[in-house]
């Protein structure tokens, strides 16, 4: 009995020693810590990326038996297509306009939420909810909101007298309204994250700075634009970076709401790549289209990280 106990204890001590020796080993510890992340990125990002590079310069289709190298043929085909330019334009317009509104609303919301009031935690929770909901489910909810017959927007507008008897906007069927709908849903989706990030930035400004600005005679606008905004600029850029990347690469909203229609007027690069490559079976074309996202996103990421670094304060 006694020997059994000491035996177990001895074993545990031995294991402990091995573990602590490993934890103290600078040469291997960081490698071991990084390995899962590198493996994960390599398998789920690196490999598909290389594969799509290869596909984009080949003749592969869903059904192809033999695949051969075609050089830049796929890219030439894409650039010559009108849909590509329309999709690119839509992607940029949707991203820029939605992020503009996200920034404006996030600033307003965060400014309101940084003030202490009863039930603030509840309001914060409610605002964060859209972020927690799966995008596809949220988009389906919006699909009903924008429905051509049952649209709650239209019925409400009619009930309060905003819509005349012969007015009935078809949200997802008219090109301008369809684009606006996509933008609205993207704003709704990104706003919570942006608000929380801006809120964190606002809370990090010492109260003394605000007090000093008050005493120094700054009115609301001067205070906001010359003190608060510059101080939260770096963190706002981070929020913007996330927003741009999420919107630029998103295909779920477009896929659920409009499938790129009417007449490709809401088609974006990501959705067009999906429709071409997966639904159309042209893997090579889809891969080539999706690669157009890469330089833009890499450029945006580098630009914003640089900006965030160089506007850092304190």
């Amino acid at each position, binding site marked *: 009995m006694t020997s059994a106990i000491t035996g177990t204890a001895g074993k545990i001590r031995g294991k402990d020693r091995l573990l602590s020796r490993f934890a103290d080993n600078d040469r291997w510890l960081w490698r071991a810590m990084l390995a899962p992340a590198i493996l994960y990125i390599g398998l789920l990002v690196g490999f598909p990326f290389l594969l799509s590079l290869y596909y984009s310069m080949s003749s592969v289709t869903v059904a192809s038996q033999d695949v051969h190298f075609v050089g830049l043929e796929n890219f030439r085909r894409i650039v010559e297509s009108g849909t590509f330019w329309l999709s690119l334009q839509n992607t940029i317009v949707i991203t820029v306009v939605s992020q503009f509104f996200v920034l404006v609303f996030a600033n307003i919301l965060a400014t309101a939420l940084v003030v202490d009031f009863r039930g603030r935690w509840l309001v914060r929770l409610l605002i964060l909810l859209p972020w927690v909901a799966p995008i596809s489910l949220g988009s389906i909810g919006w699909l009903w909101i924008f429905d051509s017959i049952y649209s709650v927007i239209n019925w409400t507008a009619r009930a309060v007298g905003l819509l005349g008897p012969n007015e009935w906007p078809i949200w997802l069927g008219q090109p301008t309204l369809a684009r606006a709908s996509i933008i609205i849903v993207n704003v709704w989706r990104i706003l919570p994250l942006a608000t929380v990030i801006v809120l964190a930035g606002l809370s990090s400004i010492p109260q*003394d700075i605000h007090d*000093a600005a008050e005493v120094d005679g700054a*009115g609301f606008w001067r205070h906001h634009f010359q003190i608060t905004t510059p*101080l939260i600029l770096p963190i706002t850029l981070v929020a913007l970076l996330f927003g741009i990347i999420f919107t630029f690469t998103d295909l779920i909203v477009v896929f659920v709401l409009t499938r790129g229609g009417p007449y490709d007027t809401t088609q974006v690069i990501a959705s067009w790549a999906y429709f071409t490559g997966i639904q159309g079976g042209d893997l090579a074309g889809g891969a080539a289209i999706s690669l157009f996202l890469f330089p833009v996103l890499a450029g945006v990421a580098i630009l914003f990280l640089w900006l965030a670094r160089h*506007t850092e*304060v304190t």
Partner: protein
Amino acid sequence: MAIVETRRITKLFDEVRAVDGIDIIAREGEFLVLLGPSGCGKTTLMRMIAGLERPTSGDIVIDGNIVNDLPPRARNVAMVFQSYALYPHLTVEKNISFPLRAVGMPKDEIRKKVAWATQMFGIQRFVDRKPRQLSGGERQRVALARAVVREPVVFLLDEPLSNLDAKLRNSARDELKQFQRSLGTTTIYVTHDQAEAMGLGDRIAILNQGRVRQIGTPHEIYGYPADIFAATFIGSPPMNLIEDGKTWIGFRPEAFLPKEIESNGDNVDFAFRITRIEYLGADRLVYGLIDGRTPETRLISKIPTNIRTHIDAGRVYDFIVRRQDIARFDREGGRRVDGGAA
């Protein structure tokens, strides 16, 4: 320049009375120090004068006008914060010119004013730097320059020296006093440091638990403390207190000296049993008890080092206090009933 007055001013934070009916007048051009332990309400009082807090009741009067409903920017007061609160993203020059730009002053006038203020505090070399590139002392000067640049009617200074190291604090104190004298601007200064208060203040208001315990010149405060709180809060080490019937007897440690150096005159004698001696360079602090007295009464004597009387711990010596240096305090409310001098 202006007279600043608070009339029965009160501030409640939830049920806590942070400031409890304070009447204070800072006279024209006066350097008034609000002194008290932390949590005594001195900073809250100053923030109410600045307009950063709203009084629960009572009035704030600046230059004869009740300013309760005016926002800070309309009061023409300048405030220096303990943290300095410099705008981290602006250069020193932009920091200093901020209050001027806020009132829409023409550009060339702003340039002149900034040049004047930076020269006054010797910070011309730093105008293009950001606050994070400055040392603590330099930041403090920038904060002061930002306060003086628009020539406010009142300066409010909230422990502006407490973030400086001890050596710098002394020279900064001297400069602060000089620039206040030369500008002649009414100044209210909050601190918990009695040396700062004594050295800077034309008058000192001692605050505790949201009330003013005493207001007077440093000389009055030290020599004639109004009550036991003021007597023990001011002075380092604090005043000695001895129970005596319905009163407390109080005298300063430096008035409590060995009999052999001053035996003539009207004195009170004590048999002083020494327990410990601290040598502090300029002074000796002698700790001990009154021999044979119950309950045990601890006293401290502060003897300048140039009085070389030999004293050993563990022995009993004759010590005296001049009768004129003794103050008496009522045991009920702690108010001084008579006596006391520095």
